[in-house]
């Protein structure tokens, strides 16, 4: 915080800035400027070599120009980023942000609906734009996320099979309409794993069940899943070719139509190699587009993932190996193994409060062999490509959404600070609940004795 805010504002703009930075829980900045120029920065565009000292010009929410010799137009709000570095904002592609406020308080959690098949549910419907998690994640450089219903993570439990549609949104805005990037980027499918050992919360212990029973449950789930997809195909046919008078709208089947038509990918949550193989086989036979999520044992299925061109949204590197005889460092070396095998992957927190650890997960993978460049892509660009959003996000190129971070160093390093953050071309505060409590309590006078 030694570096002063080096901005050259007009009087009006200065007032607006004071307003923005004095808000206790800022949601979205006032419309202070439509043109920004970040200058004197080292720019990592992720679309080519880094620009040692250049300008990023932002106009009307988008990147207008980037390069070493870009003229700064009159009236532009200038951010002097000398000594700082500019990157695309980070993208956390599987979270429960906005759906989960306080993990243990059910009233604040909207992650998981009752029932096993809920394709009609859409995360964006229930994302709370005022969630305290949003500014906290932002402060660590996360500019956009995907929230996925029904996906378990660090602070919530998974349940259900088809749990709804995942939504991509920017981490700033007054309403979801402001924030939304794409309401439906994937259908979430918690792959029904053959689980002989499950954790019982009522007794806080592991419960074992015979393999035959587990397999029977699995087969039943897969049959149900197949049925749903078959019915969705019939539904699509009926809608297209059947009599409009006899057609009855069905929200669940309607939601599955883009899946069976191959337009909406399925985000398959699976960890064990057996489950991943089964899911790939299933999606292949059903002719539906698959994105693997979590994928703890992706390394065992590398050839298949490569052959079928299935991208992976990797769960945190901070986890223990799946099996007792797996190498202790497998979760940390797996990203570099997948990269070497030519498999497209992105890092993700799979969490809410842990979203801010996204750069730490990527940095850890670099310690264990992944190149720094690939790690940056895996937190900034790859998820955008995987979910078909790379025309808007992921690199600093003209025409893309101006979601940017300006840091005082390597964004994957723990001590690095995000000095400025732009979302949709607006300079957005990195203040949050934590900073606010910090400021409040550090001023507490010593109590009287």
């Amino acid at each position, binding site marked *: 915080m030694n570096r002063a805010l080096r901005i050259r504002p007009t009087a009006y703009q200065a007032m607006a800035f004071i307003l923005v930075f004095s808000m206790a829980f800022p949601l979205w900045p006032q419309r202070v400027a439509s043109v920004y120029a970040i200058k004197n920065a080292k720019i990592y565009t992720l679309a080519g070599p880094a620009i040692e000292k250049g300008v990023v010009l932002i106009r009307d929410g988008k990147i207008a120009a980037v390069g070493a010799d870009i003229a700064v137009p009159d009236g532009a709000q200038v951010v002097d980023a000398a000594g700082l570095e500019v990157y695309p904002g980070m993208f956390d592609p599987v979270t429960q942000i906005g759906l989960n406020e*306080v*993990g*243990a*308080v059910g009233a604040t959690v909207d992650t998981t609906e009752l029932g096993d098949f809920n394709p009609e549910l859409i995360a964006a419907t229930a994302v709370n734009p005022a969630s*305290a998690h949003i500014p906290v994640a932002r402060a660590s450089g996360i500019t956009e996320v995907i929230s996925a219903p029904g*996906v*378990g*993570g*660090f*602070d*919530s*439990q*998974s349940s259900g099979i088809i749990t709804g549609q995942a939504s991509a949104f920017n981490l700033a805005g007054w309403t979801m309409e402001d924030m939304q990037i794409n309401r439906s980027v994937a259908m979430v499918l918690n792959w029904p794993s053959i689980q002989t*050992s499950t*954790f019982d*919360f*009522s*007794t*806080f*212990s*592991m419960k*074992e069940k015979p*393999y035959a029973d587990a397999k029977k449950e699995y087969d039943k789930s897969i049959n149900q899943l197949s049925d749903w997809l078959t019915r969705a195909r019939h539904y699509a046919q009926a809608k297209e070719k059947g009599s409009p008078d006899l057609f009855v709208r069905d929200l669940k089947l309607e939601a599955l139509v883009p899946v069976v038509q191959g337009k909406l990918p399925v985000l398959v949550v699976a*960890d064990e190699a057996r489950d991943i193989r089964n899911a790939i086989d299933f999606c292949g036979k059903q002719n539906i587009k698959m994105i693997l999520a*979590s994928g*703890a044992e992706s390394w065992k299925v590398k050839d298949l993932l490569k052959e079928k061109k299935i991208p992976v949204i990797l*769960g*945190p590197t*901070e*986890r*223990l*190996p*799946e099996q*007792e*005889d797996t*190498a*202790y*460092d497998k979760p940390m070396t797996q990203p570099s193994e997948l990269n070497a095998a030519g498999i497209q992957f992105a890092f993700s927190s*799979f969490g809410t*409060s842990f979203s*801010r*650890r996204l*750069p*730490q997960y990527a*940095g*850890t993978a*670099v*310690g*264990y062999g992944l190149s720094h460049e690939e790690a940056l892509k895996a937190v900034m660009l790859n998820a955008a490509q995987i979910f078909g959003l790379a025309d808007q996000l992921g690199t600093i190129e003209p025409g893309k959404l101006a979601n940017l971070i300006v840091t005082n160093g390597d964004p*994957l*390093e*723990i*001590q*690095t*600070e995000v000095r400025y953050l732009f979302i949709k071309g607006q300079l957005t505060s990195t203040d949050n609940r*934590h900073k606010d*409590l*910090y400021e409040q*309590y*550090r001023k507490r006078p010593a109590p009287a004795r």
Partner: protein
Amino acid sequence: MKFRILLALLLIVTLRPDCVRAQSSGAPANNPILIQNATILTITHGNIEHGSILIRDGKIAAVGTDAKAPDGATVIDARGQYVMPGIIDCHSHIAVDGSVNEGSVSVSSMANIADVLNPDDISIYDDLSGGVTTANILHGSANPIGGQTIVIKLRWGKPASELPFQGAFPGIKFALGENPKRSNFTLPPGVEARYPATRMGVEETIREAFIEARQYKKQRDDYNRKKAAGDQNLLPPRRNEKLEPLVEVMEGKRYVHAHCYRADEILMLLRVANEFGFKVRTFQHVLEGYKIADEIAASGAGGSTFSDWWAYKMEAFDAIPYNATLMTERGVVVSVNSDDAEEARHLNQEAAKSMKYGGLSANDALKLVTLNPAIQLGIDNRVGSIEVGKDADLAIFNRNPLSVYAVVQKTLIDGEIYFDRDKDIAARPALEKEKQDLLAKEKKASEEKKASEKPEANPGKKPDQKKKRPPSVENGAAAVVGGGR
């Protein structure tokens, strides 16, 4: 998904069964070891570039730039690497056999974690791989007064009897707030609610127990006094295993490690401690410690917290990543703990977060996982810094351990190498081959068995319907359970 479940934070359950990963046979303890050419982060005497550490009989014999290898010494060339004191995790549930919670009663001080140490828990090795050498093993937080705790060294491969940190103070776990209230989960059918269910009840439970303990201590002291005075007609008071640890707390012979979150409940326990004349050694988690850091500092208690966990339950909603820094600034001895076998693998990274959040110095950040937890556990005369005479418990990283890119290369306890990354990697092909051979053998055996059971193998003869099925794991397990009942 087998992610960590933070929901209740009662405990962390290892999902993987026990097993043995690459065993590292440490260098013999009596052989001197010289670590040379390293950057040494001593914690107490600054950093030494191109430094060396001589280890003799498991202790640090010399630290400096000119220590020479004596005859017969094993030399570890740590050129370009960093040596820091072995990481001390002040809140861990690894190496515990079975459940860590005795949840049936509100006061479970009779239960002792030392009775259930499991040296085969793979988490020991996992945490060694993160440079952890010492851990405070606690019960869960199901009870206002929980079980007795033990400090261990992560001597992977040694029997349970060799895990305890000899000379470390015994402790006891207390727990305040949502977990002892049991407010974050639904009780299974048939299980009755347990008192307490409010923070008021938690306080009352602890006071009630200490009133009992005080009475018990009085009986015992009276007996001892009269006996010493020569009274022959005495019956000793009945020994009470629940109250004895609490008497030890009042006598200052046992540390209280109190799980807590909210500022009000922390002040509550300080009042109770004051009433009964004992000290709280550490407040664990203590996520709102920053709100009352002066009061904690004045009590002499330490604070052992998380780096940046928050919002997983209501009492963690005011948690801030500046907590460690703020408490440190107000004079509290602070450590950053894991509470989790995985989190323990990167406590160096977690410590580094306090530099970002609140601007702690690099050395103070490292103290959060070395000297400070050593002070909190009363073992700072033995571990926590790199000084002559201290135990040779060391972690060697390939880079500065405060960097996210740093990877542990070796972990030493008492001068023995318990984790060696190169050796671990080198052992993998042989382990994989062994596994594949065993699988092939098992497959062959089961195919042969199948073949011999085929009806075609005995033409003209009906398959033997009465033939017993080979005992399956499930059947075997069921038999054991049945017999046990």
